Structures are given as C-alpha cells and as structure tokens.
C-alpha cells in the first residue's frame, strides 16, 4: 500500500500494521481534512475487492480441512507451511457441499458477517462512498499522485509510473512516498483471526493450468514452456526490477516482491520493499461461485455498490450474498458437470 509519507509525517500519523491501526489512521487523515483512499465501486478498481480474499481466506483458515474433503490421502493443512497446500484446491462440488452445510453460506457462517462489518468500517473510515459510486477505476491512479488521496493500493509495477508522474509535478505538489504492507486483522477483530497473520498480496500467487484432455503434443509444449518460464534464470529476470529505463535513463532501484522460488537471488543493489510473509492458504472465502461471472458481477453490485454505498444493511447483503452464491454454484455445477463428483455430493448431503 502506497502512502503519502510527507502528509503522514506532517500530521503525526504512523504507518499502520494492524487493521485497527489502519482504520484509526484513516480517521486521522479525515480529521486532517484529506481523503484517505479514492476508490471507485466499479469492477475496474481492485482496491476495494482485492483485500476481500486476503482477509476472508485468513478468517476461514480453521475451516480448510472441513471443506477440502476430496483431498489427497494423508493430507493435513499446516498454516505455518505454505507448501502444505500444494496440489490442493477447492472444487465446485466441495464448495457446494460446504455451502449447504452452512460453512460457506454467507447468511449463516460468522466469517462472512465479520468480513462485511470490517469492509463497511473501512468504507466509512477510509473512503467517500458517495463519490466512489460515481467514480471510475481509471481515475484512482491520478488521484494518488495529484494528492487527492493519501493511500493507494497497487502492485510494485505502479512504482515507475508514480515516480515519473511525481517528477512532472510542480515542486510544491511533490511528496515523499513510501509503502506499508496490507494491514493484518488480529484477534481484536474476531477470534477467527487466530491462525497466523494476513497473507500479503504478493509473491508467486499464480498457479498455471494446463487443461485436461489437451492434445498430448500440445500438452508437452505447454509444460515445456512453463518449465522455461519458471526456471531459475527466467524467474530471476522477472523478480528483480532494478533496472534503467533505456528511453529516459531513469533508474528504478526498487525490487519487485521478493522472490518466492527458492534459489532465486535478488539482483545486487536491489532493495526489498518488505520481507516475505507466507501462510498456508486455500482460498475458501467465496464472494462468488468459481468460474461464474454472473455471481461475481452480482457481488460487485450488491456488496460494493449497494452495501458499501450505504443503500442496504448488513442482514440484507448477507442474504443477497447467500442467494447469489447458491445460484452461481448451481450454474458452476452445470458448467463443470464433467468433473463434478456426484457420488461425493450425495454422500455428504442428506
């Protein structure tokens, strides 16, 4: 999370590390007459829904073994060991069973209510929900470097743009920027946050999928290419930004996120923005059904626009969420019917 260090220092606001500190910092910024975060409650501004998964998955960690029922033989989940989740994922049938048991039903499961409360608290403290309803995602970048907002969530790829833009501004509008890691919820926010801390939205998060039933020759090519892309040599290039822009001659001495692949060194002179933090995670927290854009779009509307925008209350949003997720899961069961294990569903749902 990028922030305007000049402003923070001038008003004696410290960079937060926990969720509650973050909310307090936002109120302090508002008291100082500024807007903490300029957001757009639209699908093209990830700032407001990006953290959803990070916080929600953190809250759901104690439920992983209850949901991931189709796991490999002898598997156990270890929150302190990220590698314990390798090869595991939540499938549609598992999600359907867990939804019907209430574990993943937003109207029933406590984790969803806690998240909804935190999100609303954040929207009120850190943003201007009315303006966010009309704003567009492509405005939020400029809002940060032009001083409209004091905190901006983005990836390290934003650094070069930020540096360039700040350099173009008149002297008196320039400011010193810095970053803090995404604030972590703690047990102060609820007992569900007792296993570890939040996983940062960083490091190697992407898995690669080679579709089943691909022509074997193509499959071999795809796997070969992935091996190349993830080789130590190539990954090193990707993970060490430290470079000079050939066109402008501007130096970018900052690193991308520290490499997650063991054995990849950081380029000499590269500075890590913050240390690597990793916990085992399974992605249980469902805003919408896997592979179903409709329930995702619905979530963006009823949760983002209607709930954060102050049009409906928390009970209504959780009910809507439950309906939408149920419909979406039904559609996903149909879409992925060739892979759905009907016997598993029947065995687990009376």
């Amino acid at each position: 999370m990028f922030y305007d260090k000049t402003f923070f220092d001038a008003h004696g606001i410290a960079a937060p590390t926990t969720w509650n500190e973050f909310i307090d910092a936002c109120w302090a910024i508002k008291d100082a007459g500024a807007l903490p975060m300029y957001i757009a409650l639209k699908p093209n501004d990830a700032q407001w829904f990006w953290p959803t998964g990070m916080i929600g998955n953190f809250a759901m960690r104690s439920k992983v073994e209850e949901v991931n029922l189709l796991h490999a033989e002898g598997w156990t989940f270890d929150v302190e060991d990220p590698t314990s989740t390798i090869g595991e994922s939540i499938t549609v049938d598992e999600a359907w069973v867990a939804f019907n048991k209430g574990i993943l039903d937003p109207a029933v499961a406590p984790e969803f209510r806690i998240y909804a409360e935190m999100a609303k608290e954040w929207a009120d403290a850190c943003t201007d929900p009315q303006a966010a309803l009309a704003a567009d995602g492509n405005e939020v970048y400029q809002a940060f470097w032009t001083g409209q907002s004091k905190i901006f969530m983005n990836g390290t790829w934003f650094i070069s743009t930020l540096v360039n833009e700040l350099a173009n501004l008149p002297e008196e509008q320039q400011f010193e920027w810095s970053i803090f890691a995404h604030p972590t919820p703690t047990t102060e926010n609820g007992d569900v946050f007792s296993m570890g801390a939040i996983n940062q939205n960083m490091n190697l998060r992407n898995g690669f999928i080679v579709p089943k039933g691909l022509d074997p020759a193509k499959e071999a090519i795809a796997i070969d290419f992935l091996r190349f892309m993830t080789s130590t040599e190539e990954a090193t290039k990707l993970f060490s930004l430290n470079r000079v822009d050939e066109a402008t001659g501007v130096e970018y001495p900052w690193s991308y996120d520290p490499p997650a692949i063991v054995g990849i060194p950081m380029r000499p002179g590269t500075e890590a923005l913050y240390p690597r933090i990793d916990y085992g995670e399974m992605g249980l927290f469902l805003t919408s059904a896997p592979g179903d854009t409709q329930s995702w779009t619905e979530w963006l509307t009823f949760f983002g626009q209607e709930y954060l925008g102050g049009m409906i209350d928390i009970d209504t949003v959780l009910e809507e969420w439950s309906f939408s997720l149920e419909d979406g899961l039904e559609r996903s069961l149909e879409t992925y019917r060739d892979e759905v294990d009907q016997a598993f569903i029947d065995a687990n749902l009376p």
Partner: protein
Amino acid sequence: MATLSRPVADAPPMPSNRRNLLQRIWDAKFVYLILVPTFVLLVIFAYYPFVNALYRSLYDWNGVNVSNYVGMENFATLLSLKFATVDPKTDEVTGEPLRDEAGNLVYEDIRRVMRNNEEEFEDFKAYTSIQIGDRQYHLVAKDPVFIRSMGNMLVFVVADVAKAILIPILLAVMLYHLWSHRWRYIFRIMLILPAVVPGVVYILLWRDFFKMPSGNQQAGLVNQLLGLIDPNLMHTWLGDVNTVIPALIFTGFPWVNGANTLILLAGLLSIPGELYDAVRMDGAGAWTTFRRLELPMLRGPIRLVLVFALIGAVQGYTGILIMTNGGPANASMVPGLWLYQNAFQFNRYGYASAIGVILFIILITFTVASQRMLRSEVEYEG
C-alpha cells in the same frame, strides 16, 4: 412495384411450364452470379443469426459446453412478476401489532417471507415496494434487473422521442421562416458539422461534465456551473440511484439533432406556397399557422423521425454502457445492456437471446403499427 422492374430487351416471352423456368434461370445465370456475394454475406451475418437467435432463446446455453433445451423457461424467468403483501407483525397472544423502540411497526423482511413460502415464491427476488396504510405491497420478480431495465427503457423511450422531435421542430420552423436563404444554408451546414466528432467523444465529455470536485481534481462543467450558484447544489449525479436517470436524460442538452432538423425542414419546404397564402389570408399568426398548417403537413416526417428515435431508444445502450455501465446498483440498467452483460459477462447466450427476442417483438410491433399509420396517411394524401 411493377413499374420498377423492366424486362431486358432480349428476355424471352413469358413462359409457363417448368422447362421454361429452368431455361429462364439458365439465361439469368450472370444475374444470379452477381447476387452471390450479397447473399453469402447475408446468410452468414443476417439470416443465420436471426434464426439462431430465435432458436437459442429456447436454450440454456453458455456458448461452449452447456446446451439444454428449456422451452419457454427463459421467457418465463424474464417476465415473471408477482405481488406480495406483508402485514405488520403482531403479538402472538394479544394480536396487537408489534412496535420497535422508535414506535414503528415491525415487518418481516420480504426475502424471508418468500423463503418461508417456497412453493409460491421459488426463485423470486425482491424488486420494489410501497407502503399503503399499515400494509406493505411488494413487487417481486425472478429477474428484477430485467424488470427494472424495462421500466427504465420506457422512461428513455419517452424522453428520447421528445428530444428527437420537439427541439428539431422548433429549429426547423425557425429556419424555414428565416428571411435570408443564405443564412438558412449556413445554419444547415452548422447543424451537420458536429457529426465530424466521433459520437463516443460526446459521451466521454458528458461523463466528465457530471464529475464532482475532489482534492485538486476539477469538478465537471455541470457541477462547475451549479457551484457558481450554490456549492450545495453540486452532486454526484451519476453515482446516486435517484439522480442517475435524470442525469442521463439531461445528457446532450440542449439536444439539438441536426439530421432530424434537416429532415423536418425538408418537410416544411415541400409545403405548397398557396397553402401559406390561404392561411395568411385568414389573418393567422405564427402559432396558428404552425398548428393549423405546418404541424399537420409535417406528420409524415415527424412519424419517420419518431420511429427512428423509438428504435434507437429501445435497443440502444452505448451511452449508458460508457457513462454508468448500468449502475449504480443497476439503477440505470436498460434491456440492451442487460442482454450484453448476460451474453458477454455471464456467458448466458440463451438467456441473452431471449431478451433479444422480447425486444424484437416490441420493435416489430412498433414498426408494423407505424407502417399501418404511414399507409393510411398516404391514402389520405392521395
């Protein structure tokens, strides 16, 4: 029609039997050859899509692997609408109405009411409600977004038709009565001139015009002007469910439509001068002339402009897609955009086709009705 087609000089005499028909087809082979590219393109990009849309509207189809015949279910979902009434909660023992701390009556949430009555309200969702007396009247629908979009469409149809006719009529009459024909010509050119700027630019400009100021970002034109009067009048016009529709209707103010103005002006120019002389002889003023002579004589062009505006308003959604994408909270959704989202975001191509078929039926009804009226008009004039 007969006068339009003239036989070629060396065409054979009218044949009557089958052999002659084949002979005639063979004789006309080059004509068919000329028409081949036209019809190949039409089959691929017009006939087949048309048939396909009708046929696919009966399917639950994601365009890839799911393709289930569902009969009229898509239409049933789109058009299902029910009333539900909710009475205040009462004390089970005394039968007295329950009240909360503030003294207000307490109602069961409509969603829970529907969940408790699964048989009647399965798959229904809350759409809108009003309260009359102590009773709540709810309108519930299986697809409340579509119902809302149809309501919005009606509003936009009325507004767009009014915009497409009223201002252009005013301008056309002004232009017609200008003494200087040179100036009339200059104005005509000026009316068409804005067409050089891509249409999307106007939409993007207007989206900016509604912006609120924040930080060192400037307010848009609309809020700048309102701010000059009173800063409290500034508003997030496109971000408020209550103002988004009026703001979208206001877009394009003062709604000058150059093409329509010229079409109507052409209608005025074709009014015979003797009719004007006759009306003037009666001592009629400008308003009477307009009502008694110009308006009746403009009926044809007005109907033409009206049909185009109507067709545009029923199926158009480019402006809304760019300005609000149907938001906030689907408040500015229109059927075209809902079709677009179902098809391209949700991969529900069958459902989207069903929306298309409903719009097709609406449009064909309008078109046929207007053709009927047009025909009676022609007979009347003849």
